[in-house]
């Protein structure tokens, strides 16, 4: 199987800060990372390859710094990476982005070989639109399914499972197809020394600009993007302290949760209010 996985190079939003005086985002020195949900998609693609053979190609439309992101997923085991980068692609919304990605997949089919599956993450941490998979599928005219948790090729078709809140659905997809992988459905594997050395020595990276893709400038970048961002608002974050506790039993877990809540002044007040006389 040849699987193409789309990744997005996004600012580490956790580290971006908001200046209420100027109303601007402070992102000095904030590095970009591969969208964490896309790493889940990469893991999904690698599992398919490990089981059924073939290759995984990661693809991203981004500025050149995203080569670091491609190196990261090659470090995880992706066979090669394609960076699509060109000034004319800047400012793209999901429509213009998916247009470019779809054409890049066509180019992969022409120059590298038949593509069986395109995989995307469920959404991105910097915009949470979850459009790319569906839009790419419609440009390509391929079937599309989201929230996918499992896939297995059988007789040239793909048996796909998706897990919804109350049920598990099983589909049979004609290949080639596009799937968006359910977030947190698997843990991305760590980067490996052997793969990283390969990334450096063999440089399995391809860079395509619009010279290679030859797309109509009216359909890409800012000009090809009908989306207008009306206003960015900011919801202040309440500082959170994650705690990990390994309970010995269900009772123990309940006991611990209650104890921790009671230890917190605000939470215990609310609890007492709800439970009234019972406490």
């Amino acid at each position, binding site marked *: 199987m040849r699987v193409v996985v789309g990744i997005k190079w996004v600012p580490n939003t956790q580290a971006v800060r908001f200046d209420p005086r100027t109303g601007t985002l402070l992102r000095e020195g904030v590095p970009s990372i591969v969208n964490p949900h896309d790493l889940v998609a990469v893991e999904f693609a690698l599992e398919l390859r490990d089981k059924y053979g073939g290759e995984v190609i990661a693809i991203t439309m981004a500025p050149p710094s995203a080569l670091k992101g491609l190196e990261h997923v090659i470090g995880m085991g992706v066979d090669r990476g394609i960076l699509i980068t060109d000034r004319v692609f800047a400012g793209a919304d999901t429509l213009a982005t998916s247009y470019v990605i779809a054409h890049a997949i066509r180019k992969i089919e022409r120059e590298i070989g038949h593509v069986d599956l395109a995989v995307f993450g469920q959404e991105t941490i910097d915009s949470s639109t979850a459009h790319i998979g569906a839009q790419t599928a419609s440009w390509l005219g391929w079937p599309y399914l989201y929230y996918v948790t499992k896939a297995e090729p059988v007789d040239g078709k793909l048996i796909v499972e998706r897990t919804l809140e109350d049920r598990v659905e099983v589909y049979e997809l004609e290949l080639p197809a596009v799937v968006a992988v359910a977030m947190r459905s698997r843990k991305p594997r*760590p*980067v490996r*020394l*052997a793969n990283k050395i390969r990334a450096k020595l063999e440089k399995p990276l391809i860079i395509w600009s619009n010279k290679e893709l030859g797309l109509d400038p009216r359909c890409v970048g800012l000009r090809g993007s009908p989306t207008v961002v009306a206003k960015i608002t900011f919801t202040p974050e309440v500082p959170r302290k994650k705690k990990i506790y390994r309970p010995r039993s269900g009772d123990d877990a309940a006991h611990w949760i209650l104890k921790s809540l009671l230890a917190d002044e605000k939470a215990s007040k609310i609890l007492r209010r709800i439970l009234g006389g019972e406490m």
Partner: protein
Amino acid sequence: MGSIPTRFDVIVVGAGPAGAAAAYHAAKRGFKVLLVERGRGAGSKELYGGRIYVGPLRDVWPGIEKEAPIHRWVVEERLSIIGDGEVATLSYRYSNPVSFTAYLPDLTRWMVSKAEEEGVVFVDEVRVDSLVRDGEGRVIGIRSGPDVAYASVVVDAEGANRLLLERAGIVDALDAKRAPIALGVKEVLKLPKGAIEDRLGLSDGEGLSWLIAGTVTKGIPGGGFIYTFKDTIAVGVVVHLGHSVNAVEAGVLKESVKDLVESIRLHPYFKRLWRDSDIVEYGAHLTVECGLDYMPPHLAYDGLVIVGDAAGLLLNLGYTVRGVDLASYSGMLAAEAIAKAHDLGGMNAENLRVYENMVKESFIYKELVRHRGICWLTKERRFFTSYANILLGILSNLYVQEFKHPTVFEAVKASIRSGGEALLPLIGRILKVVREL
């Protein structure tokens, strides 16, 4: 298990100032070098005080003054002793700067880019888990997860927190009660444009280094520091870890180490300096207090050389820390030694011990020995508590009088009495301190 087909001449673990220098100079000598770093890109795990002495670095990194991301050249040193409500400050200004400030992550990234230009294969995001040895105990490569990479010689440049050397049984497990280690905790404050110059009396590109002793460390051996960068100031403390544990045990330290830094940032004497600033980063790192006591039994073994902090090659003078320059210099010496060992016929311990001799003959080791006494000082708790108070007491007796001013001798005597110290042993100790410094 994946064994990597490519064999390297040299594998360097850790892309800090030591590892980057070793890799750069080994590649310059024609060796095929792999440099492995656990962080994302080089430098992303680096935290230090802020000031670097340029002298030795000129030999290691040609062009450093022109190309490196230098922020300010230090032209003023300040030392403050803080008591409860009192501050004594000594300042010294000079015109021929010998040290600069820089962000260590940026500087390290620059060093590694130089190494890459020489052909070093730099691999980041990879944590090395252990040194790999053959049946006879020779180091033959490194292991990371399921992968093994082989080389004729491994350079250990993993820094002060030396897990690999521990796992290889070369040094003892890190124990704060026995090892001469300290914890540095630091905040970085971003100031409005021009504020650093205006408030500290500096011109463009001029920097200041400021050490703080006294009550800031709650009597734990250590001190505070302030360094100036382009548009930020670093404020931090360094505390001896063994004594910190003792202080917790004795109930003397009741607050978190982070509160020690906060108390400098919010100290009325200092906080006006960074009015309207925004804290942009907070972090901590271990450092070595007394290099000689941290040195492994040898600096070279069969197939292995140890450089930088991991080798204890750091000079902590109390009033100033020299780690970056020494680390880089030792990395360069290691590369020279590897070339010599190669000419001598191979990377066995006997040949590689050239490195040990080179270190011992270099300024690094001579300085470490010359300043050995400082180790005593960093262990001397009293120096950090009563003596600071006595000094402040003397100043207070001298200056804070409404009618009658004492003679200097009277002021000294009165202050020492109230500090609960006997005069003669104290004079002995003060003389000792002066000798050590």
